């Protein structure tokens, strides 16, 4: 199954990846080849088969509602690209 360039750009936009035209061309090919590989799944009859979301059948454990974390803002923000007065900064969000 081949992907056209418009589909590539739509996916790139969803994934927030800059894709220049040359790379989009390559992706169209490569992703097409990968989809060809995974398209083998379509031929399998899976009627009545449950999806296996987790390999080991377990259920969610519940955590007691206790607040135990302390403030590590300084440590966390030491690796941040841009902070001021305890806030993370990003280019202005225009709405």
């Amino acid at each position, binding site marked *: 199954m081949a992907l056209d360039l418009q589909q590539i750009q739509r996916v790139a936009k969803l994934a927030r990846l*800059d894709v220049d035209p040359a790379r989009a061309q390559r992706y169209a090919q490569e992703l097409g080849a990968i989809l060809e*590989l*995974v398209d083998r799944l379509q031929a399998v009859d899976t009627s009545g088969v449950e*999806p296996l979301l*987790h390999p*080991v059948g377990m259920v969610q*454990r519940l955590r007691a509602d206790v607040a135990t974390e302390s403030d590590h803002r300084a440590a966390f923000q*030491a690796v941040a*690209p841009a902070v001021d007065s305890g806030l993370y900064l990003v*280019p202005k969000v225009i709405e």
Partner: protein
Amino acid sequence: MHEKSIKELSAALRAREFSSRELTQHFLDRITALDARLNSFITVTAQRALDQADAADKRFATGGDLPRMLGIPIAQKDIFCTQGVRSSCGSRMLDSFVAPYDATVVHKLHAEAGAPMLGKCNMDEFAMGSSNETSFYGPVKNPWDTARVPGGSSGGSAAAVAASLAAAATATDTGGSIRQPAALTGLTGIKPTYGRVSRYGMIAFASSLDQGGVIAHSAEDAACVLGAMVGFDERDSTSVDRPSEDYVAALDKPLAGLRIGLPAEYFAEGLDAAVGDAVRAAAKVLEELGARCTEVQLPHSMLSVPAYYVIAPAEASSNLSRYDGVRYGYRAANAGTLEEMYRRSRAEGFGAEVQRRIMIGTYVLSHGYYDAYYLQAQKVRHLIAEDFARAFEQVDVLLGPTTADVAFMLGEKTGDPVSMYLNDIYTIAANLAGLPAMSLPCGFKEVGGHELPIGLQLMGPHFEEARLLNVAHQYQQATDWHRRRPAGFE
């Protein structure tokens, strides 16, 4: 010192034949002398290693009940977060990321078990790759032939241990990333049952497939390290709450009566003849040790790769959404708008293979394709798991090749993603089914004047890692493939 097994090293440390500091310094010296040829480390943490060695030596002096890994220097795959040390995951995206916390595995091995950490091993970027060529820090070379790949994604861990730059190394396995590099470098690597090793602080690739493990010289060494890694972790919802086992104590069990299954599909077209011969010969050795081999069928096994290349990219595209340049990691310079910052930070911070998988994953999850791809892949995954469940009604362990062939040349497959993906054809199914699986050396194939290792894969039912290590250890008592060392790194 570096040629000794972990058991031997531990005994020597306890007998004060040499100190952990001396041992650690020895490995650090080897890294300095030899790693330029391999590129197996992204970060060497010499001072931390020596400090931890000193702490271990103090504990030896005090005596008492000492952990088996105390004072044994090991390396961490750079996928595990290490507090105060860059935790890059092989990516430019995290080149500046000094983790503010330790992964549970890191805490267990270093803080609890007292093993000095020599450094952080190179890897395919975000563990996406089978050759270690996708790392931001450059490819790792195979010590058996430095023109060849060590496999991936735990290629740095494998190369470092193969070259005896560390007594062992942690690794992770999403589709074969422990077993395939172990196979290509003549080592023993084990991926335990999904949920056995905590994923907390292990940077996620595909959450339902990722599992931490170890690459070592032997099943016995692997048992020593794995024993210190496993255990329930309340910070990981998928962590299994089961008592830990003494893998070392289980190694000596005789194999009499062991039922081994050889999946017909794993010996079909595509398997290199020399590899097939070596694997069948290994089965013979195990039969001589008392095991019985039969052929079994895993009819859906050839759907593993397609199912995997839907599920893994889907989960990866989601897991990697957090790398947006806001709170940590790479941020593109001079982005005028938020959207531009996102798109450029991610396009510049991630390498080509990671972006390719994000694109695939985003596509298969996107509107209109979810049922056809993701849901269908998870259903096929169920069929694959059921194949194993049926097989394990007849046999105790499965035996087959780890890879179709020995290590390939650097650059040989980088232009063709699909042929690279087919590298994991025999290893992926165990991840889809969450089974414990391991690779151990079972022979060599001579290519172009180089002896290249061949890997044997063992797979078992859930939570039977002790059994796998036992079989591997018994095999290694009867063979010496695992004792061979690459020329120039003895």
